[in-house]
């Protein structure tokens, strides 16, 4: 009894494994619109610039979507399909340009600008926080030196006397 259960379980396991492998290798029969559009929205046709392929209404774009569907049905991966489109129609069909050649600027310039801006802000902020050096000459109206205070006291004393005398 135990042997037959083990044999049954073993055969079920093999059936599932082989079925999985077979379904992975088998091309998809009819890829859905969602599957096609998931790739199409990353592509742009040169005929209608700035319109993603998934929403472009032209005949040219409809044919490109059919091409994606055919390639999905043939079992191609998303990356393989994108590579095919780049080979056929150039890198400008991609929504995000590949980081090569002059396209590198698209990726580098914003980063450099942000880093440079942050650096400038940091330096400016630090310069604001640095204490301002005071001038060498002593201020006269802030804290009079003791000698001057004594002079003023004498002056007030004389003034009060004069007032008292009338």
């Amino acid at each position, binding site marked *: 009894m135990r042997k037959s259960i083990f044999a049954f379980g073993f055969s079920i396991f093999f059936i599932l494994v082989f079925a999985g492998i077979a379904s992975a290798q088998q091309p998809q029969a009819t890829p859905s619109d969602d599957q096609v559009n998931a790739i199409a929205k990353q592509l742009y046709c040169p005929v209608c610039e700035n319109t993603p392929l998934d929403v472009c209404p032209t005949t040219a774009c409809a044919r490109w979507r059919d091409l994606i569907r055919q390639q999905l049905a043939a079992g191609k991966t998303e990356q393989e399909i994108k590579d095919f489109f780049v080979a056929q*129609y150039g*890198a400008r069909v991609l929504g995000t340009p590949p980081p090569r050649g002059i396209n590198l600027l698209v990726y580098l310039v914003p980063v450099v600008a942000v880093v440079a801006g942050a650096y400038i802000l940091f*330096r400016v902020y630090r310069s604001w926080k640095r204490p301002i050096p005071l001038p060498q000459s002593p201020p006269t109206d802030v804290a009079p030196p003791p000698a001057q205070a004594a002079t003023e006291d004498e002056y007030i004393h004389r003034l009060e006397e004069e007032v008292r005398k009338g």
Partner: protein
Amino acid sequence: MDEIVTEQTEPTEQPEPTERPAQKIIPRWGRIIAWVGLFALLAIVAMLLLRNLQGPVAVGQVPPTFTLTTFDGKQYGPAEMSGKVVLVNFWASWCKPCEQEAPDLETAWEDYQPRGDVLFLGIAWTDTESASLAYIDRFKITYPNGPDLGTVISQAYRITGVPETYIIDKQGKLAYAKLSPFTSLAEIKAAIDPLLGP
């Protein structure tokens, strides 16, 4: 009474806050790199804008060289074009005006092909191969046709759409450019005949 002389003490001038000039905030090497980078970026942007503003290849200029691999695998490059009048036609199967001129182009090709000094090349622009082949079959086109792989040729010619036709003379200069469909066989012949000589 003694005269009391009071000296008006002039308000002492507050020292102005010492401002650090911008030059002190960023070091010299930083400023140099920033300016060089900025000018380089502006130069690149200007170059790209100028290239976009150039428009299609002008008559009298030497057009860009290219090699076309046809749908049946043959290659047509500068060697095959040398010393011939070459008609380069950009088209697409989804392009209705292209259909208008397709029969006239084929008729013209059938007329000129026996001479041996005229070459027609059809370049399918942003088209799928199956649709292009169906189009070629539909109009019974026999002159060499191939896809514009990577849109390299159309970008070199800076085309703005389809159909566009360029005719190169035997000296390799662009002699004629039409950015719309041919309306008749006579129009095509009128463009090619003067380039053939006696």
